[in-house]
């Protein structure tokens, strides 16, 4: 329902992995801080219809988190149907086999729970947080729509209208709408899956048909393409029994072959600019490709840490230099993945830096300074304690994400889906603390101008007056 769970500035880093980071090289310094890890017990199994299930009991509060994640996202939507993955996410709330329109919302909220769904580049999630006594009801609701939503012309037209208002709120009627997550991919990428507007054009949204929705469901919403996770106050044996009872007869269906969305790295700099008629101040965002987050996890992880070394807090490199010393930027942020979720994205993806500038700010100067600072890390390495403190703070963010029963369920569901390893949730703090200074230095050396895609927001509303 909430279009895209994207607010990169607000997004906190989190973590995950399949291959283990190699034991730190003797010659290199790792963070060497002791970040306490969680030890959530995790059980996983697969139903005969292909549905993968992850259970993570935690009896510390009488609440549960339920997440169903389908392995389809913005990158999989067909040409001529931009925004369709998200529109379809809305349709999954419009009634199902045994439930009228509005019933899903009422059953969840009438149980004291909250719900939502969101569409990402590589997956779509549906989730609830509830008091623990609503477990069976919630399993029923998710199973019912996995069997099939009620796809009607009336509901489709209604939700096209709702999605258009969502786009107006988040993109068209506010400054910096869609910056940079909708604005930078078309600069960096050449192919439709990676480059197109995931919120969709109004023309494409209005052209969507019930038949499109039906075939999208049949192709991507198969049991074998989904993961169900339940975390929190559950008895795992009982939960497993209830899951079998409610999901067992969802028709079997295999996951479709996922295309390879890879594109070649950039060999020369790409620049683009646009005027935002509502923006009072200039802004700029740059992205550099990073190693495959799934297949090359140990090579990817240093970039996740590097983004924080560069931008986390007043002691970070770029905040010190750009914001506090040079005053060439008002704010700077850095993160992995266009939606700021480093451990929930597949290849191809990027490290992003985005800066807002003061009035009359010089974008080229900001970019040159970023180059200088990454070069400085590549040449001189890190200061004493710099890696350790950065990683300690990342550990807090990771743990904080998983304190919420739903945050835990969602992360484990995606880890299962993309890496077949939900237990990675417990390993992430340790893996972070094993990233070495050498790895950070090498990663910083890769952030060169010729590998960079940049988009610049030009002021359309000087002074901020309407």
């Amino acid at each position, binding site marked *: 329902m909430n279009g895209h769970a994207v607010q990169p500035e607000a997004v906190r880093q989190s973590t995950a992995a399949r291959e283990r980071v190699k034991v730190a090289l003797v010659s290199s310094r790792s963070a060497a801080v002791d970040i306490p890890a969680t030890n959530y017990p995790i059980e996983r199994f697969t139903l005969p219809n292909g549905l993968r299930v992850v259970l993570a009991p935690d009896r510390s509060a009488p609440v549960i988190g339920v997440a169903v994640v389908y392995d389809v996202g913005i990158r999989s939507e067909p040409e001529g149907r931009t925004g369709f993955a998200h529109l379809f996410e809305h349709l999954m709330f419009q009634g199902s086999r045994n439930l009228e329109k509005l019933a899903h919302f009422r059953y969840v909220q009438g149980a004291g729970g909250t719900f939502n769904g969101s569409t990402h580049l590589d997956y779509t999630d549906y989730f609830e947080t509830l008091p623990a006594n609503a477990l069976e009801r919630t399993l029923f609701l998710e199973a019912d729509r996995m069997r099939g939503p009620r796809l009607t012309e009336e509901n489709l037209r209604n939700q096209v209208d709702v999605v258009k208002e969502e786009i*107006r709120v988040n993109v068209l009627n506010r400054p910096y709408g869609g910056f940079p997550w909708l604005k930078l991919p078309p600069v960096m990428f050449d192919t439709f899956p990676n480059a197109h507007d995931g919120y969709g054009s109004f023309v494409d949204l209005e052209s969507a048909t019930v038949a499109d929705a039906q075939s999208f469901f049949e192709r991507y919403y198969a049991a074998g393409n989904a993961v169900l996770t339940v975390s929190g106050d559950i008895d795992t044996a009982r939960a497993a029994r209830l899951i079998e009872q409610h999901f067992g007869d969802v028709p079997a269906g295999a996951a479709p072959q996922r295309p390879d969305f890879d594109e070649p790295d950039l060999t020369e700099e790409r620049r683009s600019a646009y005027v935002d008629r509502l923006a009072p101040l200039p802004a700029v965002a740059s992205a550099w490709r990073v190693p495959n987050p799934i297949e090359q996890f140990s090579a990817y992880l240093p970039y996740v840490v590097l983004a924080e070394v560069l931008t986390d807090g007043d002691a970070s490199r770029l905040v010190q230099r750009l914001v506090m010393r040079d005053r060439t930027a008002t704010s700077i942020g850095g993160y992995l993945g266009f939606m700021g979720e480093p451990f929930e994205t597949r290849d191809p993806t990027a490290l992003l830096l985005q800066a807002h500038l003061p009035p009359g700010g010089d974008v080229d100067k900001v970019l040159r300074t970023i180059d200088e600072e990454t070069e400085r890390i590549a040449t001189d390495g890190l200061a004493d304690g710099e890696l350790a403190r950065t990683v300690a703070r990342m550990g807090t963010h990771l743990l904080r994400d998983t304190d919420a029963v739903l945050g835990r369920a969602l992360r484990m569901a995606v880890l299962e889906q993309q890496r077949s390893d939900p237990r990675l949730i417990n390993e992430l703090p340790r893996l972070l603390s094993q990233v070495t200074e050498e790895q950070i230095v090498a990663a910083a050396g890769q952030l060169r101008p010729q590998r960079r895609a940049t988009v610049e927001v030009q002021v359309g509303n000087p002074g*901020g007056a309407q």
Partner: protein
Amino acid sequence: MTRPVPPLEPTHELSVPETAERTLANGLTVLAIQRASVPLVELRLRVPFAEADLAGTSLLTQTLFSGTADMSTVDIAAELQSVGGALGAGADPDRLLVSGNSLAAGLPRLLDILADVLQRATYPADEVGTERDRLVDRIQVAQSQPAHLARVALLKRVYGSHPYATQTPEAADVKEISPEQLRSLHADRLRANGAILVLVGDVAPDKMLEEAERALSTWDGGGRSVELPPAPALVPGALTLVDRPGSVQSSLRMALPGVPRTHPDHAALQLANLIFGGYFSSRWVENIREDKGYTYGPHSVVEHSIAGTMLSVSAEVATEVTGPALLETWYELGRLASLPPKDAELEQARQYALGTLQLGMSTQSGLAGLASTYAGYGLRLDYLAEHAARLGAATLDDVAAAAAKYLAPSGGVTVVLGDADKVESVLGVLAPVQREGVRQATGLDEVAEEAPAGGGVAPGADPAAGGSAEGA
């Protein structure tokens, strides 16, 4: 063929964690709650700040961590990071709030740095200059955001000359603030007496109290108690139309009367608000979103402040449907104010209110936010159990009476921000309209307190889940 929806299992009794409490000799109250779910600790320090200069307070929140006698901005940030920590400050017309967290083992260091800042912040000229410019930039950005402008217009309309009327400073006023003014504001108002520190996390409560006392017992008491006058009653009248030329949506806002958490009508009002528009499964959301497709994230929230409570109604709607959307809003308010709701509607709202109380307490940050907010009103977490009992006991008559008393559209004020040339005539069909230009003043969105599940930045599909920053 149709399968029955499984019933709910028996409800758990609301479980409220225990709070350890100590008031130090300097007047600082410390509340400590153990929740061992993750090895972290959450910190909230709430300091009464009523009537403090708005521009000065705003800049103070941005420069409080800019240096002490011994540490620079970078030193402070690096020291905090080394224990996985961070601290930040924000303010509203009632209080200044320092929020932060760290690894549980870092609590002593987190408190030491907080204590150093509270007692020895220096507001260095260079850093103050930087933060002043940044604040002015942020004010400018806020001025271009429709939700912010609508909020500014609503507060002005609701509060008139009360201090709540303007909650964000003028850029020109911020530019005038000197480091000396910040130091004097700090000395005058950032005092221990009357302040409340909340610690929640994976540390024994006694240990948390000990550490707080060790670090903060030397913080100056003193200070003075400043009480705001009660917020004025709403004055219904012409609809205020604020022009934002070229806007592709209209921001509808209404304020209706509300009552404080301790008022006998509060639980019934909360339920009435839920039935009207306070959560997704409400009449208004089902009407203007799920039936008519006018809007994405409409929400209606009881907003508590120390000097008064209001019920605020918000929706961003397509410019073309501004009139019809407002008509449906008034219709749903009027319908609930004049006809009792159905039993099933009340039960559903009641379960939602009770369930989300439990959800809000299920994280360290949720608990810390609730404990801190309630403490600002002289309440403790046991209020939640009492409130749950009142929610459980509210009858259909109670809720109908509360709806009649508080939700009547004739008792509210309405503000619309949008393209006035396109919407003025249709609005004029519904009510007298008074047109205004956009105010040049405005401000910034304060660092949001973590809302319980579902809240936060996204204009959610589940409007009531987050509730206001002030919680249930």
